[in-house]
């Protein structure tokens, strides 16, 4: 260590908190539609998604982001989260954990019914938890989130009791996610095919029809009563109907928005965002996803990155700032944190990630990589300093792949040979499972700081039956393990936050990761779409408050 750690940690925490304040203030959706008058009822809004079309509209099955995007329009969760990161009531009015943290009683709203007429009550919650934990449901995301939940049982019609195997400080955050939303138990009784085609929830819209590879049609739920506590209005939604389309080609998607064929698009590319910001007819909504920031993880489980000096040298040799500003054209902010800027617990430390090729060169010399070969790459014991970097073309947008190319080009100047290998998802997972990588970037969305335990606890190096493991930096540090395990059991907010801050500092100072920016989540909308916002849980848009100013 070149500097005394405690000072640095304090400094880091301070920087983090300041940065956070700025980011929270800045992340409220830009709303240039201020003086537009009273919301108007009616009309059809067309939403065009660039994400893959889900194979099942019930997010209990599997559980990915495309499912979350659409299901947020017709399904609702027990709790939600506000812009400040506080858990707020939704279908559950209140909750009380027992002193040992092993029993949680949720009191539910008594006035809610599913859109098929079934009452929303404690028995319904019990059925949903059972559905998520049933192996035949084939749930992944929801199943993992309920890892510490032994059972949920109806105590009375409006009180449901969760029994845990150990205290879980992330329980509320987990339950706020769209993958654990509540569905009609009567609908869940149907075959999985039927439920996948038309899941039934309590949300502001109802799934009316789904023509595969074309569109999902949602219609307004006229009996809607249960908006989350931070919604813009009460009662039914303004829109009559929502057409949810899938346009995978980003150019076609933007052109469709420009021509007015569609009203809202997601996965907007940086150049179109810049164009839209100069346009009067299109607005931009920027809503970074929670959980982990996008970062390059350095595999500390094998050479050369098992040496902290080589890890730091790599990080110092990568000119990320220039790459981000040229490729994202001001639409993404550089991150210096393991967590997304929307997480209140995020700790940021810019000083650790300065671009400094001369420092990098000294570090490599010290680590024994002090010779160079004919092509200018560093060599040690006859071995070239190579970094295998498999890139998933499904998970990294084109601009991000270009960031990696620029990192490759700048790291080369210091003597790193970065071998970028773009590949499809199956090959990418195969490369990770066979430990055939030195650097990798994998997004991870989860509400709250518990994502740190999934990504950096040494337990996560142990592969699942599929060969997948989440700790791709292969961080194996007993101190980090202890901090994360304790934090996951600590329900006191202040204590929990300080444990997570300590863990993050240790991760950042170990140079296991090179943070890039938040998980980008940009929406473009026609200016006559008013009131669109994203849910602060996983940053999916909600069309409940949206109306058409036509």
């Amino acid at each position, binding site marked *: 260590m070149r500097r005394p750690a405690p000072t640095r940690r304090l400094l880091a925490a301070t920087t983090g908190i300041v940065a956070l304040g700025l980011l929270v203030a800045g992340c409220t959706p830009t709303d240039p539609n201020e003086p537009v008058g009273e919301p108007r009822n009616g009309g059809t809004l067309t939403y065009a998604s660039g994400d893959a079309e889900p*194979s099942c509209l019930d997010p209990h099955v599997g559980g990915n982001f495309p499912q979350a995007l659409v299901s947020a329009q017709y399904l609702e969760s027990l709790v939600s989260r506000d812009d400040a990161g506080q858990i707020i009531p939704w279908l559950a009015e209140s909750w009380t954990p027992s002193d040992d943290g092993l029993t949680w009683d949720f009191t539910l709203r008594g006035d809610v019914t599913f859109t098929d007429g079934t009452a929303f009550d404690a028995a319904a919650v019990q059925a949903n938890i059972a559905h998520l934990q049933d192996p035949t449901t*084939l749930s*992944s995301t929801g199943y993992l989130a309920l890892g510490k939940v032994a059972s949920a049982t109806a105590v009375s019609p409006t009180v449901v009791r969760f029994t845990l195997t150990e205290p879980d400080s992330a329980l509320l955050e987990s339950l706020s996610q769209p993958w654990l939303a509540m569905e009609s138990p009567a609908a869940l009784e149907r075959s999985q095919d039927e439920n996948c085609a038309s899941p039934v929830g309590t949300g502001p819209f109802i799934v009316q029809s789904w*023509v595969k*590879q074309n569109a999902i049609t949602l219609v307004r739920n006229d009996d809607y009563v249960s908006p989350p506590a931070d919604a813009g209005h009460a009662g039914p939604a303004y829109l009559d109907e929502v057409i949810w389309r899938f346009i995978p080609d980003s150019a076609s998607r933007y052109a469709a928005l420009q021509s007015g064929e*569609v009203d809202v698009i997601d996965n907007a590319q940086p150049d179109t965002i810049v164009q839209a910001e100069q346009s009067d007819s299109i607005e931009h909504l920027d809503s970074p996803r929670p959980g982990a920031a996008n970062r390059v993880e350095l595999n500390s489980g094998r050479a050369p990155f098992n040496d902290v000096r080589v890890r730091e040298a790599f990080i110092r040799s990568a000119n990320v700032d220039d790459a981000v500003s040229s490729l994202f054209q001001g639409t993404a902010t550089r991150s210096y944190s393991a967590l997304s800027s929307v997480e209140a617990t995020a700790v940021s430390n810019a000083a650790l990630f300065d671009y400094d090729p001369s420092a990098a060169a000294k570090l490599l010399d010290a680590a024994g990589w002090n010779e160079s070969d004919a092509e200018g790459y560093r060599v040690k014991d006859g071995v070239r300093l190579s970094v295998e970097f498999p890139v998933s073309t499904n998970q990294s947008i084109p601009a991000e792949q270009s960031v990696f190319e620029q990192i490759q080009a700048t790291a080369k100047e210091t003597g790193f040979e970065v071998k970028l290998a773009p590949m499809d998802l199956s090959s990418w997972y*195969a490369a990770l499972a066979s430990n055939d990588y030195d650097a990798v970037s994998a997004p991870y969305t989860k509400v709250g700081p518990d994502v740190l335990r999934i990504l950096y606890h040494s337990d996560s190096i142990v592969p*699942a039956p599929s060969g997948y493991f989440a700790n791709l930096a292969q961080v194996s540090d007993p101190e980090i393990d202890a901090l994360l395990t304790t934090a996951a059991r600590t329900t006191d907010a202040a204590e929990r936050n300080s444990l997570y801050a300590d863990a993050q500092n240790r991760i950042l100072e170990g140079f296991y990761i090179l943070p890039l920016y938040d998980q980008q989540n940009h929406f473009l909308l026609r200016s006559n779409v008013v009131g669109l916002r994203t849910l602060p849980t996983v940053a999916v848009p909600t069309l409940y408050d949206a109306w058409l100013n036509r």
Partner: protein
Amino acid sequence: MAEPVNRRRAVLRVIGPMAARLGGAVFVLWAVASITFFAVRLIPGDPAQAVLGGPGSQASPEALALVRNEYGFDQSVLVQYLAQLGRLATGDLGRSYALNQDVGPLVLGQLGGTVLLAALALVVAWLLALALAAWSTRGGLVAARVGSGLEIVAAALPHFWLATSLIVVFSIWLGVLPPISTGGATGLVLPVLTLAVPLAGFLGQVLRESLLTALESPFVLSARARGESERGVLWTHALRHASLPAISLSGWAFGSLISGAIVVETIFARPGLGRTLLNAVTLRDVPVVIGVVMIVAVAYILMTLLTDAASRLVDPRLRLA
């Protein structure tokens, strides 16, 4: 020889080859099914994993066991092969790994969009090719050169480049045509043009050559000698004569349109077989890939049978072959 025997022979002469061709068609289908079945055995990885959303999904061991049993992955290859053939014989294409749906209805549901697109593109391509061929065969050397040049360039245009160029010009710069299908007719213009222009380039080349040959043939000379107008000669005699190579090209045009549909449906966000296939390939959704391939093979075989019969009807000489 007695009259009925003669007629029976004539009928046999048509039916015999057709029966042989039908037998051949069944053979081709069986071979296609077998090749695809054994080929996909070569895919590394656990198909049960693919059903559960790929290796990143962190599926539990219970779920994996469940899926293996449900899909019969735990049975021997021979049993699976026979089961697959049995299912195919009854029209059951199996179940998609990724889409949570039976392949048969899925593929059939996507068929309409592609057929509409391909049919329109074929018609437009023929109109373009006819117009260009007719113009350039009658317009002298310069027109012939320009026509020939246009055809070569059109035939060389990759679908993906043409599609994006059309979107940039007509949707983004001029803003006159929608870049995606919205159900209306205007949404079809750009995708149809994308498919039709390169095809027209090819058809035009063949057609113009046939026309030139026909225009120099004795029957056209005699028609001219009878005093028929040039336009009359072109449309009634020469074009009819030129239709034979055109019919025999339809099978090829079909394959070309299917390849094109893969690109066009993706770029213009149209539902259809091509987009389904590409999605399935990227997800390694084997049953859907097999399903689309089988449907295309059936369509291709039907197409060749039809064009064969049509050629025999148009040209009596072929009946003897």
